[in-house]
């Protein structure tokens, strides 16, 4: 694989903490790479070092085989976790200003269509909704028609519909053969968008691969979900735990487990069977809630 971005033994030491502790990554061109982890895992620090915004304590970052330089700045598009824009500028003026900062930029009209900005183009950029704002920030990240795009928790705080719209948008950008580096703490988002993911905790990468690969590697079971009002006595000896108001039984052999439950007269009207998800994997690996 000829990686577009390569990270070797990256370390960031702050006076109090070691935010990033020896990270190695290689990102293939044209893929969407997801960096997952609980808050404080070191995702943003890692990504901001890759963007050339934070200086690493040690380690190496290569873009197309070279250290980050002028070429990288011209070819990278960045959406920070939170970005303030200048006051009193309309959406179009904001886009045009950023476009002027690059030697080569995407056609503004095309960008407006791509990111669906048309309906609020002349509004003050401070007075648009959260979803519109994230689309504008994405448009700014795309203004130089970048080869690699960094999105740091782009859908945090959006409602489910706005989030799904944003995913459609990212998929359209993927279709243009761009490389995307995404951090998120929504596992569903990673599953929908990412070709490859890495899970980070305490400044280190603890698992890496395609979502399917990771699930296969770590799990060979499925989950049977039952309502919580079943007496514990009936479920004794089964691998069972209570999650968010439901009982989850993990099993590698569904037939045997169902037979066992029938024998014990457990009511199965509300039974649900689901495969393992990234969320299960995440909790298994980090032992923490995946929450903001």
């Amino acid at each position, binding site marked *: 694989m000829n990686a577009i971005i390569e990270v070797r033994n990256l370390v960031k030491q702050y006076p109090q903490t070691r935010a990033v502790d020896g990270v190695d990554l290689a990102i293939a061109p044209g893929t969407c790479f997801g960096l997952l982890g609980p808050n404080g895992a070191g995702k943003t620090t890692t990504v901001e070092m890759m963007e050339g915004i934070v200086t690493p304590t040690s380690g190496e970052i290569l873009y197309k085989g070279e250290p980050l330089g002028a070429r990288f700045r011209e070819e990278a598009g960045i959406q920070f976790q939170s970005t303030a824009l200048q006051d009193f500028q309309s959406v179009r003026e904001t886009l045009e*200003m*950023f476009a*002027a*900062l690059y030697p080569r930029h995407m056609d503004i009209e095309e960008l407006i269509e791509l990111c669906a900005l048309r309906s609020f183009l002349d509004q003050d950029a401070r007075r648009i909704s959260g979803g519109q704002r994230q689309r504008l920030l994405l448009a700014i990240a795309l203004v130089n028609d970048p080869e690699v795009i960094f999105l740091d928790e782009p859908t945090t705080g959006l409602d489910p519909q706005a989030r799904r719209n944003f995913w459609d948008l990212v998929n359209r950008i993927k279709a243009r053969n761009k490389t995307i580096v995404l951090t998120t703490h929504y596992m569903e988002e990673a599953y929908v968008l990412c070709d490859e993911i890495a899970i980070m905790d305490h400044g280190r990468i603890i698992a890496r691969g395609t979502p399917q690969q990771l699930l296969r590697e770590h799990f060979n079971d499925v989950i049977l979900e039952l309502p919580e009002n079943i007496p514990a006595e009936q479920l004794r000896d089964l691998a069972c735990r209570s999650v968010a108001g439901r009982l989850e039984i993990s099993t590698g052999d569904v037939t045997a487990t169902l037979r066992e439950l029938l024998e014990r007269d457990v009511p199965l009207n509300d039974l649900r069977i689901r495969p393992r998800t990234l969320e299960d994997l995440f909790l298994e690996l980090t032992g923490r809630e995946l929450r903001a």
Partner: protein
Amino acid sequence: MKKFLAIFRARNREFLRDRSTVGWNIILPIVLVFGLGFIFSDTHRPMFKVGVVAAGDARDPFLETEYVQFIPVEDADRARQRVARHQLDMLLELGETKRYWINPDSPRGYVLERMLPAQGYVREEIEGREVRYVDWLVPGILGMNLMFSCLFGVGYVLVRYRKSGFLKRLNATPLSAFEFLAAQVGSRLWLTLLITIGVFLGTDIFLDYMMNGSWLLLLFVTTLGAISMISLGLMMSARVASEELAGGLLNLVSWPMMILSGVWFSLEGAPVIVQWLSKLFPLTYMLDAARRIMIDGAGLADVWLEIVVLAAMSAAFLALGAAMFRWKAE
């Protein structure tokens, strides 16, 4: 240049669309010029002032007059100019023939002339306009307004951009620190000169300021003064990310400047320590040069030292500010 223009225009828009700030930048100096000009217009000198050019220890009965201050004069030409501007009420020359100069428009000159003995003095007239307090005050007020506008308009804005993360976003583009800072300096310089010139010309219609020097030289000195103060604001906020700290730092330089740079009153009679302190501030040099151009009709040869000092201060502040500049909050 394209990048410079993009940032320059965006900053101009941001300022001009912020109606309340623009309004305040224009209204404050107008209110101050009119208000203070009228409040202090009656505080005239308590006595009659007569300049005396005397060869040796000449005696004259007129010199015994009470309630008249007699001031020995070395430079008779300069003294005649002061009579023309009502800064002296009369000039008396006690040579072989006794001569006196008065301004026929000056009421005090008229009274003094009546007090002179009827015989033995040759009358000379000098015409000229009175220097009113407002003529002397207007460079001070506009200079002070320009100082606040430059210091806070650049310093505070930079800190706000840094704190909000807007600078971090720009840092992720090919824009260089020099291009960004140049656009900020350019935008503020353009806007503040526009406002200062507008207010000056607008109030000039009503107050008809004294202007004895070159307009071009006045504009040059004002521009240089504005650049020096924008650079000072830039330096003070080069790496600060807290609005409160920036406000404190900017007040620390703006308040002493407002009081000690001769905005309100001349520093000629002030204690040596105050005069020495005033030499630290760019505003002092700008006001001094502007007043001499407007009132004394000073030319380039007379104010070159002020120009050199302002240019040197601008270069030093800019260099330090650029060297210390940070895109991000530490």
